[in-house]
């Protein structure tokens, strides 16, 4: 059942990417172009909708000891603010602003986004692998 839920959740997530048009980097860049005179607020509506639903889910999660299909609930959120968090977020923002793609929309476009999306995903996975190698020492 857990595997079915994982697949179903992935399908719904992917559908959300298309319906919201976040799969289109031009739409995302329209939001990030805050000072260009033609600001596109769509991403704000997407984040708002997603955060509202998830806020309810966290309240429901607090009433449960364990998830419905076994395993453990995620622990309390860490409160450590360090250079890794802020530096990582800044590096992420730099890449996001250059292209308008982040991991979710990039993977959503894997089969239908053509060569640019494939190049971006290959580079993204290389970046993840690179960091893993470096941090192992």
């Amino acid at each position, binding site marked *: *059942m857990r*595997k079915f*839920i*994982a*697949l179903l*959740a*992935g*399908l*719904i*997530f*992917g559908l*959300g990417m298309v*319906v*919201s*048009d*976040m799969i*289109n*980097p*031009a739409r995302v860049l329209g939001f*990030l172009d805050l000072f*260009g005179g033609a600001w596109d607020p*769509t991403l704000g509506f*997407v984040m708002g*909708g*997603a955060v509202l*639903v*998830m*806020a*309810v889910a966290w309240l429901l999660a607090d009433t449960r000891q*364990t*998830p419905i299909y076994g395993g453990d609930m*995620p622990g309390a959120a860490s409160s*450590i*603010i360090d250079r890794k*968090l*802020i530096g*990582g*977020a*800044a*590096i992420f*923002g730099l*890449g*996001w*602003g*250059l*292209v308008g793609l*982040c*991991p*979710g929309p990039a993977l*959503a476009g894997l*089969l*239908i*986004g*053509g060569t640019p999306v494939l190049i971006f995903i*290959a*580079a*993204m996975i*290389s970046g993840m692998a*690179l960091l*893993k190698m470096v941090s192992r020492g």
Partner: protein
Amino acid sequence: MNFDLTTAMFGLAGGILIGLSAALLLLANGRIAGISGITGSLVALKLPAAWTESLLFLSGLVAAPAIYALIISPPAIIITTSVPLLIAGGVLVGIGSRLGSGCTSGHGVCGVSRLSKRSILATLTFMAVAIAVVTVSRHLIAA
């Protein structure tokens, strides 16, 4: 501002779907729908215990837009970024999301919605930097 009510409502509906997906994964499986975290966990020599679940989640994420394209219509995916910048952007997104332990979904949706200080700060940081990058590249360098 370029406001279109229909686009905004589709944005809200899509956002609700993303929230429902993350809610389902949390309440049913106890997992956080952070795409960079799930992807990063599979970029390893030794796969994590629940790797099949992670792979199935990502398969759904990849498949749904393709199915949508076949049945309804292919969504526009407009990318004008040059190849060197695409590669740079991808590498930076890969490194940054793992170093900062999250991306738009993990911090922006799952973390912000539980009022995690870390996630709120990370989200403000990557939003501010990305807005700065677009402002500089579109209006200062291009101008």
